[in-house]
């Protein structure tokens, strides 16, 4: 007479996941004045926009979404990144009924399968978190880009004014707020 066994296994997985995404780009700053002075002017305009000076020539700002923007005013390199963490706690139970086999072998195989499924679920959850991080980053990008373009344009205008003063007597400065265009009249010599 055959013997039937009911085998149940329960496995859990607890993991701390850490995902990040980001990109790097470069600002184009014209060499109107020596590079150190251009860096100072850019730093000043970044400070107006909530950036804080960090080590070396790096200025940093953290947005509400957690996106971090780091600008190296000496090189013009911009790093935009977002990191998020999550605690995963997953549990899964599986049962099966077998007959005429060693129940321990079946239990071992079933446990292995459940662990594998938990790993797959953890990977799926991690990837979902990464996709969410990427989405937030993409949302923040256009605003960051506009802000940095604006800071670069203002710093360039500041540099032009400074350069103009070194050439002669500045008689008129006109700025178009819409286009950002700057017209400077200089009486030379």
């Amino acid at each position, binding site marked *: 007479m055959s013997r039937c066994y009911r085998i149940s296994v329960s496995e859990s997985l607890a993991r701390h996941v850490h995902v990040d995404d980001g990109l790097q780009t470069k600002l184009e700053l014209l060499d109107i004045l020596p590079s150190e002075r251009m860096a100072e002017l850019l730093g000043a305009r970044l400070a107006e926009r909530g950036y804080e000076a960090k080590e070396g020539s790096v200025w940093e700002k953290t947005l509400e979404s957690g996106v971090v923007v780091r600008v190296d005013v000496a090189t013009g390199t911009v790093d935009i990144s977002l990191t998020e963490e999550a605690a995963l706690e997953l549990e899964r139970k599986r049962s099966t009924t077998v007959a005429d086999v060693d129940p321990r072998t079946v239990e071992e195989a079933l446990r292995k399968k459940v662990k594998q499924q938990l790993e797959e679920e953890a990977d799926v959850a991690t990837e979902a978190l990464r996709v969410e991080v990427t989405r937030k980053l*993409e949302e923040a990008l256009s605003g960051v880009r506009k802000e940095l373009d604006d800071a670069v344009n203002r710093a360039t205008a500041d540099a032009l004014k400074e350069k103009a003063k070194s050439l002669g007597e500045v008689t008129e400065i006109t700025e178009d707020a819409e286009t950002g265009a700057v017209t400077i009249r200089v009486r030379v010599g």
Partner: protein
Amino acid sequence: MTLRVARSESHFLLFVRNVLRGGPQDQLFTHLAGKNPLYPRIGPTAMGILQRSLARGCVLALARHGGWRRETRPVGDPEHAVDGRLWDRHPDVHLTFRSWSYQILVWSWTRPQTDAAPFPRPPTRPGLGDRLVAFLVARALIEARLPQGLAAVAHEPLAQLYAAGRAPLVDVDWPAWLDTGGDILLEGLGESLGRSWAEAERWKLGHTEPLALAEVGEAQQALLRGLLQALEHRDRLDLADFLLHAGQLVVADPAAPPVLEPVDLRASSSLRDRMRARAACAAFTDAVTFLADAMHGPRSTRFFDDTYDAAQARLRRWERFGDDRARVFRDASARLADI
């Protein structure tokens, strides 16, 4: 006169002919994907046929792949420009075949090219004919859609160039290669290289997987950086004209250009991977923009300068490419660098 060879030898010689001529794709695939029998040494009759096939076939291949064009190019030094077809400009150059040609062909025939294993390294100074054979085998592998086999020919810089970033990258000593006949092969094979790079560019633009795209693009960047540096140093940027030829194929009409950036990258991939793919995608557009910027040299060459003839020839070839087309590539480079 009838020549008798063994059956296995006749199949091998048919394979060689298909490689030299660019035979039907399905036949090439069957030949290259299979493990075909051949005795360790072919007989003297088969060897004689092989030698004649290589001599005639390689000359024809060189003509067909671009050597037929009548052009004015510097020969020997930048101040000495010669007009004519490839063999007119280099009448004293011989296609030399050493044992490496035989080794490449036997290896390609007897081993299934579905494995990514490199064949024997070339000798210190392979002959010009050997280099051409390696190039033709690489071409056959790509035509037969057997890219794994490209690892076999990766040692030959010309095969690397033809693969346009799709072969495993091997460090190339470009100056040494150019010094030992590579410059003549670049002149003669420009059309074929151009078509291959155009195909690689279309593949990149239609690809959706960022990391695969980044891998090919970064390989192209490394390849082109080394080559263009070596050519600029020797004042022979005209040898990179195959890139302009590719550009003409990719952008047929500058007034209605295709989109020169990958637009369908997998949306669920990370921004980092997508930006890496975009930056790598700029390998070709950056190289074309570099060549466009280098045209200031020929433009500023005066009629009494010794390099005037070569400069004028380069400007005539540039006119076929055109400033409008160059602008399309320059704009694409700028967009690919932007976030």
